[in-house]
């Protein structure tokens, strides 16, 4: 049976399986990563481990979403 809530809870508990960077490095690279994403470039290849960190860290994930929405919104104007 498909149990998305179980999968989410296990994901929160066990975190990403692939290597990830930490919060400080994530913050240092976030602006470059977001601009690469918005430009359609391969941001994950440019900053290995950041995508995995976003999967494991709720706070950095929220800040990534906000920066992407803010910069993406401005670009769309």
């Amino acid at each position, binding site marked *: *049976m498909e*149990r998305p*809530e*179980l*999968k*989410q*809870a*296990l*994901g*929160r*508990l*066990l*975190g990403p*399986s692939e290597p*990830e960077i*930490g*919060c*400080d490095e994530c*913050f240092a*690279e*976030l*602006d*470059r990563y*977001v*601009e690469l994403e918005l430009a359609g470039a391969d941001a994950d290849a440019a900053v290995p481990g950041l995508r995995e960190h976003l999967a*494991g*860290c*709720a*706070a950095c994930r*929220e*800040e990534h979403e*906000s*920066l992407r*929405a*803010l*910069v993406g919104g401005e670009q769309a104007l």
Partner: protein
Amino acid sequence: MDAAASVQSSPTLDPESREWLRSLRAGGREHDGAVLRLHELLLRAARFECARRRPTLPHLRGNDLDDIANQAADDALVSVLRRLDTFRGASRFTTWAYKFALLEAAVKLRKRAWQGREVPLEPETWGLFTSAGIEPDASVEQSELLGTLQQAIADVLTPHQRRVLVALALNGVPIDVLAERLDTTRGALYKTLHDARRKLRGHLEELGLSLETLEAS
């Protein structure tokens, strides 16, 4: 660092970013005007963050949110000016500056949302099913596997790792709130969480279990 590496790590600045740096490093009225414009930019980002989070903060009034946005912009301004020489031009200056305002606003809003609330840390009180949003109608296999997971958390983690994992991953305590309560930093707490998760994964693998087998049960 050789010349080639230096060029590679210092991409050419776009004209707008170069102008921001030039005016912020200028003296007198030009500097003051640039600082004022930077504060406006940071305030816009901080208000953007407050507006995004407003639905999750029904107890906060518009004035409260505007105070938080202003405080976030003030603090971000100090951070940006202090770190001006570390801006590498890897993004536009405005994107780089925005992230400081968004961070300051997000941290303040998380802390405000948890102001006066107890931070649940005690491993003895957690229930994997209820805390993690897993309904108690799990199959026998799932219940057994989750029991194994619960036992592993109790057995292989240090008390500090257990507290951090339970608070962050099960009880949904924001990492900045926990960092403040435990008098540490977000980076240090995430390192503890990361180590706890790795230990847990390793232990489950020794038992022949993995996230995939747990999900598939």
